[in-house]
């Protein structure tokens, strides 16, 4: 318990708990979950389900940020992958068949990998700053998505495709399960192997880790591909949930939500140490915040102001200057206690 209190996750956890408590006070039935037609329903399930795409994108973003990078193009990749999958399904003669959906999903994920390779190429080989390298795809990507959909909103009626974002499996929404599986795989791959440490070392000092024999170029390349794949899956999820591909609005601002989730979760934008658990909590804070605004009865248009204030508060609390001040205050208090004992 004390380890948790001293750890970097204190503030995120406190924020999340405070938000949940606030919800329960306003709406006592907040935590109730009911089973209907073999599916689970309830506010908590809603938060988990709506938060699944953000969790996925934030997961990829965490690793990118850990290498001292940033990926602004995830929103565009969400739009592109949704657009490709939907237009392939809509164009096929059997939109309802599983093989069509598998083909569309496969093609979208391959495209996501290609886009990730592109970002990785610009960052790790050509050496462009990550903000700018991914800004290029962020600007051009929405155009590409509109090129795929020819500027239309493509709607699809395909039962197997609907499962990804809106279906249920084992009475839980499939999107939650997909996000959970991706999260678990990432956690095991980076924390049970040396990969996580290598990523952190690249983030702390790319030069030194290269000299120490870490292949920083391939690691940086890998994290951008991973981030793009996460965004691609999120894109499939979002377009499947609304059974339509909207090149303009799918995944709009999701890169910002994801970055905020990572920052709130205690991963520094300067790279280095990262916390997947923190990111998960951060993503849920953002999603809960949105839900809270509705339950508390604040007009939904104020959500952004509310979000901005929470973000500013969390960032200020985590900022090095504030941390140093808190540490000083504690030290002074400890000294005062000691002097009091001596006297």
């Amino acid at each position, binding site marked *: 318990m004390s380890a948790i209190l001293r750890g970097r996750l204190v503030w995120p956890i406190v924020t999340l708990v405070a938000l949940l408590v606030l919800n329960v006070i306003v709406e006592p039935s907040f935590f109730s979950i009911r089973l209907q037609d073999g599916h689970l329903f309830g506010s908590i399930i809603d938060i988990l389900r709506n938060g699944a795409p953000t969790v996925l994108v934030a997961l990829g973003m965490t690793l990118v940020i850990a290498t001292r990078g940033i990926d602004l193009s995830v929103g565009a990749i969400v739009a592109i992958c949704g657009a490709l999958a939907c237009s392939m399904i809509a164009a096929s003669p059997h939109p309802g068949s599983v093989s069509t959906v598998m083909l569309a999903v496969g093609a979208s994920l391959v495209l996501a990998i290609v886009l990730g390779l592109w970002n990785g190429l610009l960052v790790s080989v050509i050496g*462009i700053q990550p*903000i700018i390298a991914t*800004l*290029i795809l962020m600007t051009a990507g929405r*155009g590409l998505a509109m090129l795929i959909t020819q500027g239309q909103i493509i709607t699809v009626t395909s039962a197997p495709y609907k499962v990804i974002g809106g279906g249920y499996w084992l009475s839980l929404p499939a999107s939650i399960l997909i996000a959970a599986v991706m999260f678990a795989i990432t956690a095991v791959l980076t924390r049970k192997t040396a990969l996580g440490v290598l990523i952190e070392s690249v983030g702390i000092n790319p030069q030194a880790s290269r000299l120490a024999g870490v292949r920083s170029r391939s690691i940086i390349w890998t994290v951008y591909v991973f981030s793009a794949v996460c965004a691609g899956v999120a894109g499939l999820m979002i377009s499947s949930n609304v059974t339509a591909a909207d090149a303009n609005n799918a995944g709009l601002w999701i890169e910002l939500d994801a970055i905020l989730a990572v920052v709130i979760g205690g991963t520094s*934008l300067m790279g280095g140490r990262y916390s997947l658990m923190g990111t998960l909590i951060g993503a849920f804070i953002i999603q809960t915040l949105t839900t809270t605004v509705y339950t508390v009865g604040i007009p939904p248009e104020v959500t952004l102001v509310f979000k*901005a204030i929470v973000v500013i508060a969390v*960032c200020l609390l985590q*900022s090095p200057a504030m941390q140093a001040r808190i540490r000083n205050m504690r030290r002074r208090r400890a000294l005062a206690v000691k002097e009091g004992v001596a006297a």
Partner: protein
Amino acid sequence: MSVQVSGKAPTFARTGVRRYLPNSRYVSVLVTLALLIVMFAAGSASYRGFFSGQVVLNLFIDNSFLIVLAVGSTFVILTGGIDLSVGSVVGLSTMIAASLLRAGWSPAPVILVVLLAGSTLGLLVGLVIHYFDIQPFIATLAAMFLARGLCYVISLKSISITDPFFTSMAQTQLPLGPDLHLTPSVIVALIIVAAAFFVLHYTRTGRTVYAIGTGDQSAMLMGLPVTRTRILVYVISGFCAALGGVLFTFYTLSGYSLTAVGMELDAIAAVVIGGTILTGGSGYVLGSVLGVLVLGIIQTIISFDGTLSSWWTKIVIGGLLLLFVILQRVFLARKR
């Protein structure tokens, strides 16, 4: 970087062909200028009516607000920072202006309030960035959310402006010869560009901006007012965004909470295409103006063509961004 092998002491005089080559500092700006001319020539060759003075003037008229935004962003980027909040501040400015005018305020205090609001937001961002050591990216991101949220708080619906001063600013055409005209907004934008040019190249503040971008540690050690200047650039950016918002209301005569979504990216793209290096310390405000004109001419060509779809704008801007960023890389690599 030729090495002189003659017995004489090496001189810095540029000899031979190099004398006729432009100073390498100006290369990326000149590339942008050349690109602008080539695009204009290509447009003139392909479309009837493209080769006219008014098409050129329209580039300024349709992008006067973006020129002002790009000037503000140039200051921030020269210090090595970034300001993502400008688009939302434009939106917020249009909302404040429209709602105050609807409430019966007269134009002068409205414009003053808008400019003050933008500058104050910039000041807050600057203070947070400097004193709490938060990355500009995150601080301005929060400001972006805040400004956009405040837009929604003011009104969800579009508010139209019927104030006589604002409508006259929208409709006035300053004749500039036969079939040529400008708008007051362009004059405002050009004054801002001139002021920025003066500040950046002829004042201590300007030199400090460049010095911070080159390295804030060394700027501090040189005794330059780093704190004040770093905060100042965000105030300038906020002010420019608010002024851009005012010009935008002159252009659209309405306030709407979703105006200028993503305009910060246009401003950043214009600055990058104009040759300012994103790590700071090198670039010119006139380059940013050229960058805005390049973005404008892409839109003009697409609207003249008529068969190209609007999404090509985004793809072309992305491609140009890539081209210029790689160009920057090549020049930086050669310098080392």
